[in-house]
């Protein structure tokens, strides 16, 4: 059966969406200066990956991918907590949350 890209939602659609989100997130991480925005971008990247996990899980009839997503979400929460704590500390010290202040962490 011939699939129509615009009418039949298939695995490829999810993967394309996931890649687009991932690249947007990566661009945010690489280009933005604001630590909060960078953290949000990282979150975006993680969730882009989650989408592909779920998609593969659905299309291969295997729950492994879904389990993995739970792990990723847990890690993402922990990462956000640590990242925000760092951001708060940076802000307290420099009155700004610019990523360039992280250079001071260099040994």
């Amino acid at each position, binding site marked *: 059966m011939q699939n129509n890209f615009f009418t039949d939602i298939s695995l490829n659609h999810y993967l394309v969406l996931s890649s687009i989100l991932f690249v947007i997130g*990566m661009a945010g*991480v*690489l*280009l933005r200066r604001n630590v909060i925005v960078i953290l949000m971008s990282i979150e975006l990247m993680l969730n882009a990956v989650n989408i592909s996990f779920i998609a593969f899980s659905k299309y291969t009839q295997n729950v492994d991918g879904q389990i993995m997503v739970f792990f990723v979400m847990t890690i993402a929460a922990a990462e956000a907590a640590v990242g925000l704590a760092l951001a708060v500390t940076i802000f307290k010290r420099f009155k700004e949350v610019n*990523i*360039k202040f*992280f*250079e001071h*962490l*260099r040994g």
Partner: protein
Amino acid sequence: MDHSILMAVLLLSPFVGFLINGVRYRQPTYKISGGIATAAVFISFICSVLLFSDLVGMPADQRKIHVKFFEWLNVDKFKVDAAFYIDQISGIMILIITGVGTLIHLFSTEYMHHDKGVTKYFAYLNLFIFNMLILVLGDSLLTMFVGWEGVGLCSYLLIGFWFTDKDKAAAGMKAFITNRVGDAAFLLGMFILFSTFGTLNIQEINGLAPTTVETSWMGALTLGTMFLFIGATGKSAQIPLYVWLPDAMAGPTPVSALIHAATMVTAGIYMIVRLNPIFIMTPNTMLVIAIIGALTALMAASIGITQWDIKKVLAYSTVSQLGYMFLAVGVGAFGAGLFHVMTHAFFKALMFLGSGSVIHAMHEEQDIRKMGGLKKYMPITHWTFFLGWLAIIGIPPFAGFFSKDEILWMSFHSPMGHPVLWAVGVVSAGMTAFYMTRLMCLTFWGKSRVPKSVHPHESPAMMTIPLIVLAVLSVIGGWIGIPEVIGHTFGHIPNYLGEWLSPVVRPIPNLAEADHSLEWALMGTSLGVASICAFISYHFYVKSPEIPGKIANSIKPVYELVFKKYLVDELYFKTIINPLVEVSRKIWYFIDVNFIDKITYVLADLIKGGGGVTRSLQTGNVQIYAMYIAIGLVIALSVIIIK
């Protein structure tokens, strides 16, 4: 008591003494450290006496105490045990080492009492005794070599004992390096013997000794024994390696008495006597040994005449007497050589300790020109020294007479000897009488030339008791080896030493029947020469002290040459040491600095530069790191996709 226990105590007692004093080396308590060290050696002496009396109790041809502690090395055919054995030869040696050693330890306790390093000194001295016992008792050449190296180490440590004085430290190094040359030859000799016999065990080697003489100069046995002899020239200070011994006098005087007169320097003679079955089968080596011995005796005696330092005179005298011993073993008279080792240990240790007593009394003054007339200040030292003097110049019935006479007679009578060797020996004996009388005259007799600021005094009992014991031994020590000719005349006095050694010492092949009238004549000649020389010397240095100076002036070039020790040190410096240093310096400069060092520098620079490049990547900017990750991801993905 069980032999193995006695043997273990004999060997380990000095070692334990070394450990105790070595651990507490900082404490300057001379009574305690001296007491420990002396007791340690005295225990060894008691063990030696017990073992020796057991040896005497055995039947004459089975006298042997062999103790194997454990198997040391076992590689294919190469087997060495940590085993030790006492026979007639080593039995005498352990008695000398521990007996004379005890006396010298006792003397040292007083002599070194104001030295800060006294405990260290006794630790070294005990270590020396331990190593010397291993050298003497070891049942294989390798065990002997362990002791051989060990005594070399202790000799080095004790010569350079006052190492803050640069000259003394240098003297220690000179001894060590000169000995190393000999030791290398000793090793080569061991290799040759091992490849010939397939064993290093001394008894097995002696058992495998050929029954026919080896006449070739290049035969394996001749080469092996020759190398062993070169090793002996290093340790026993013979031409060409004798140069270290006179300098070794930089050490404390009791050390000179123990190591550089009585025990260590006789190790070479002992080694040859112990291996006598193979040495006697290599007449070429024996010839070389006899010639070197005679030359050394003559040369060292002539230098001894000109020296002004009391210890230097005794040092050259020691070299000369060692030459006698080599002359003896070189003509096949191993028993006579060992006999002289023993009597020499008594009278030379006595004279060195006597000189130590004098130096002590004179507040570290060693120049005999500043002595004289010490007889009335130091009667005991004088009289004991006097007996030593009679013994060394060979006046009957003192110890030196019998051993020296036997050597001279054998060098004439033995088929391996030669009248020329005898003549050289007699001339050296005359010189010995001359310089020893000179030493007596300048030190103890004649007018006092002692500076007004110095008040000589007799040494305390702890120093004079060893002197008295050694003096008694110097008088009676020779009576165990009274030659047959004298023994016969005075009613069948046996030659105890000759009988004692006969099972372990091979007889000289083709020895003719002794002609008694000839022997009396030769004995009379050497005695006459010695007495005349002693008398001339007495006349020169006591009656008319201006004559020696005049004679020295009239033959100034010769005198200068002898006084400067034939310029041998200078010759060695010119021909060997300086070229060696030059070449080493060139090699250091061209190969080490320009090549080896360069390689390491270039390598280091490369790594440093590489590190600089990668360091610049690590900026600390988190986003750039993230960029690296992204780039890496892209590259990895593209590789996967393109593939």
